[in-house]
């Protein structure tokens, strides 16, 4: 069947072998697409596009427009698209096509290959043997503004920001009402007045807390820069994605780095190891590694390192 709508996932090199011998298709055995359809290949001009027949009631222009307003539907489509692309790309080079690229029949797919022929060919040359790794860094929560009751002497956190919960703190905070003012009443005389502490001590303590928090946030930015600079040096290309919105990620910690790195497939283990090392060296950050992904973030030449993250700073 050659009529009807076709959803395109990715473009691969056509090695000239029979269809069954396309590595990408072999890898896709048993994997279905966005409409639970089997994925097949249309070959043209030395390229092949991985595609599936999708029903018009969901994928013609009007329907698709409506469907994309539905987050649950978008999620299903995005996950299926990603599954096809990354499964196909597990062993061989695939060039992902942008989400929701739909053509009319196999003829439409061939037109698409012809239109993008040069771009696909140069992307295949450039990305052959490469994979994408995602690295995100989050600021671990800053110290609370108000110390919990019974831990009065938190000012010394400023002396040891890297070991915030050090048990070797000389001034034990466990005795209530003692620091600095032995004769003070054990309860506040007026609401809002900290007990057992002079106003000056209180202000000093607050200042130290604030400085410790600032230093910690400073370390966060510096850590993110260190991570990105180091990994950019290891990668062939890097790209900064915008920090993720906590409403989407469900992660309340501030996302200070959301980057993608293009790495040679055989260097992946080394790259992952370096990420682990960097995570250990930056206690103010929680570092997450995802991948290997197909090179989604590196399909366009002019996009490399092109986007500036909010906080990861400049990058060459």
């Amino acid at each position, binding site marked *: 069947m050659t009529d009807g709508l076709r959803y395109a996932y990715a473009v691969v090199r056509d090695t000239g072998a029979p269809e069954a011998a396309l590595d990408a298709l072999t890898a896709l055995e048993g994997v279905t697409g966005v409409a639970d359809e089997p994925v097949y290949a249309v070959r043209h001009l030395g390229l092949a596009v991985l595609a599936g027949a999708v029903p018009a009631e969901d994928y013609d222009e009007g329907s698709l427009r409506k469907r994309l307003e539905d987050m649950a539907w978008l999620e299903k489509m995005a996950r299926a698209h990603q599954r096809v692309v990354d*499964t196909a790309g597990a062993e061989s080079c695939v*060039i*992902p096509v942008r989400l929701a690229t*739909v053509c009319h029949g196999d003829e439409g797919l061939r037109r698409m290959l012809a239109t993008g022929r040069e*771009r696909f060919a140069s992307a295949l040359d450039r990305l052959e043997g490469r994979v994408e790794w995602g690295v995100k860094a989050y600021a671990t929560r800053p110290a609370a503004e108000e110390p919990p009751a019974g831990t009065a002497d938190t000012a010394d956190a400023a002396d040891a920001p890297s070991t915030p919960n050090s048990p070797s703190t000389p001034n034990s905070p466990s005795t209530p009402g003692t620091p600095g003012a032995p004769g003070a009443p054990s309860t506040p005389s007026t609401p809002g007045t900290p007990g057992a502490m002079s106003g000056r001590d209180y202000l000093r303590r607050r200042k130290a807390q604030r400085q410790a928090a600032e230093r910690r946030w400073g370390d966060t930015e510096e850590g993110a820069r260190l991570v990105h600079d180091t990994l950019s040096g290891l990668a062939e290309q890097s790209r900064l994605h*915008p920090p993720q919105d906590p409403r989407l990620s469900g992660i309340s910690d501030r996302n200070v780095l959301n980057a993608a790195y293009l790495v040679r497939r055989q260097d992946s283990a080394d790259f992952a190891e370096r990420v682990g090392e960097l995570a250990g060296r930056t206690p103010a950050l929680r570092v997450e590694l*995802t*991948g290997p992904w197909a090179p989604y973030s590196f399909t*366009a030449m002019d996009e490399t390192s092109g986007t500036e993250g909010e906080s990861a700073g400049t990058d060459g």
Partner: protein
Amino acid sequence: MTMAPEGPLAHQQIALVDVLDRLLAGGVVITGDLTLRIADVDLVRIDLRALISSVNANVPSPWEEP
């Protein structure tokens, strides 16, 4: 998809937001036969709208043809 091999970095489920980062701002943009531009879509869902705006803030016109 194979995830990170190391213990502390490994996680089981791929976050949707990580997938969307790549699918909405990555991949070859090419004219299919349907010229759908997601910018035209009425994004009624707050979470999706937030995503699109955060993408737009840093990637000029991600939905337009190149």
